């Protein structure tokens, strides 16, 4: 970490833009600038500025209704499925504004996978669930599909548990396994970023722990943004933490700092359970 920072600093002073983009561990995936969002008249996100780094786990915490899920869903524009949504500002994803007219949501969502609050496998076989993404993007070759399915299931650390029952309905396995199937399904479109919206809120503690371990594994290859109600989860698994309150980012810093020495009183009150 400190070496790459040093590299960055050196490149800044030398004005070598090229070099800083090669220092991959600190380059941005998402740079949000002055994002505002309204649901009808309800101003749900206010002047959000967030710079999200590659190959890190970024946790978003905050009380219910603070806008954390809304922000997450804005990152892949799923929020637009809600009627009467208006946005202003920019979200630069890899240098391109996702709100640009010529940026199709389908393209964005192929690069940015999503895992939802409740495990939501399709009522199809485990195999067809994983193959769904590749198929809609035009892959028909059975051999290639087989490879993608195995690779994705291995990536989600569930291959050994389901390899003999790929043709069974995805609802025949436990909730925790279903959620890992959903993670595998997201991996199958080979995304760059994975958004997770309270992925463990419907799971038991052991399944939760497995998902948390999986997140640690996945950050080697993906950038992960996770919304969680569970502050301890954010503390355990994230590198950076953003605290949202009433649609604003109150504090965004290294998770170490947020949880040991936050600079805003409201952050401290929230993480220490003294809120309100």
């Amino acid at each position, binding site marked *: 970490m400190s070496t790459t920072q040093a590299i960055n600093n050196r490149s800044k002073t030398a004005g070598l833009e090229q070099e800083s983009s090669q220092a991959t561990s600190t380059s941005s995936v998402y740079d949000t600038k002055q994002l505002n969002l309204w649901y009808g008249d309800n101003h749900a996100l206010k002047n959000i500025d967030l710079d999200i780094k590659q190959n890190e786990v970024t946790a978003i915490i905050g009380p219910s209704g603070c806008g954390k899920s809304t922000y997450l869903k804005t990152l*892949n524009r*799923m929020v637009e*499925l809600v*009627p009467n949504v208006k946005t202003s500002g920019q979200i630069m994803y890899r240098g391109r504004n996702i709100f640009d007219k010529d940026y199709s*949501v*389908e*393209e*964005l*969502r*192929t690069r940015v*996978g*999503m895992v*939802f609050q*409740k495990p*939501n*496998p*399709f*009522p*199809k076989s485990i195999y067809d669930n994983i193959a*769904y*993404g590749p*198929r*809609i*993007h035009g892959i028909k070759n059975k051999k290639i599909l087989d490879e993608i399915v195995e690779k994705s299931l291995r990536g989600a650390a569930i291959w050994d548990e389901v390899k003999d029952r790929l043709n069974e*309905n995805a*609802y025949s396995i436990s909730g925790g396994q279903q959620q890992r199937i*959903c993670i595998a*399904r*997201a991996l199958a*479109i080979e995304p760059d970023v994975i958004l997770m919206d309270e992925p463990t809120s419907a799971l038991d503690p052991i399944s939760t722990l497995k998902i948390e371990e999986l997140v640690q594994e996945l950050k080697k290859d993906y950038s992960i943004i996770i919304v969680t109600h569970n502050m301890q989860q954010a503390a355990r698994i994230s590198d950076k933490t953003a605290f949202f309150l009433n649609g604003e980012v109150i504090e965004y810093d290294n998770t170490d700092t947020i949880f040991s020495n936050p600079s805003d009183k409201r952050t401290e009150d929230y993480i220490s359970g003294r809120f309100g």
Partner: protein
Amino acid sequence: MRYIEHDIVVKRMNGRNVVNKLFKSIFLLATLSALLALVILLYQIVSQGASHLSIDFLTNFASRFPAEAGIKAALVGSIWLMLVVAPTSIILGVGSAIYLEEYAGKNRITTFIQMNISNLAGVPSVVFGLLGLTIFVRALALGNSILAAGFTMSLLILPVIIVASQEAIRSVPGELRDASYGMGATKWQTIVRIILPAAIPGILTGSILALSRAIGETAPLIVVGVPVIIQFLPEGVMDTFTALPMQIYDWSSRPQQEFQQVAAAGIIVLMSVLLLMNSVAVFIRNKFEKRY
């Protein structure tokens, strides 16, 4: 200071239990009376018509003589009618349902359309007959053909199919749509690959029940001008035809006592067809029982 005196509550318990049992009996009686009506109806029809039921009855055309009267033309005619009604009403109905649920914005126009569809479902069938007479028989000059009658029947059951399909589509959990959209699927891909497969049992069940209503309807056919006595089988959709309820209606309105038995036999055939269709609906519903 207590608000609930438990001793008094216990004292009053008996009276409450009596009222409880009384209402239970009333509701049971209500259910039994409906069942009783059905049993009497079935008993009467079977006792009247069973004697007349035979292979000949199914293979003979209509006749002036009760002993020779058969239901062949009506049975085949009804099947022809269904061959027109089923694709027309299901394609239009499911299409409208998909549009209203997945594509249409939630605005006043949609609400207006929605309200009209619900109202149409309540319009008497004879009114649809008049509509069919005006549009299909006369304006489009289809005459009293299978096509004209089929289109009229399709209009009649369309609102039912639309509402049932909307219900089925709406019951597909939003999370499945989210999952599909979240992977970059288009709306059409999501509808074809996720929503329709999940909604199809509900859509089919609703459609079959609607079709079984169409097969039993008489009023629109009378208004459209479907004849009763036909001594040949239709060979295409432009041919004229007759249908089961028409035939039964005709027999039961004849003065001879024997024709009442023939009518009863016809009812048994019609009810068997209805029962068959309903069992298919139940089978489909059970077979594709939703797993989410």
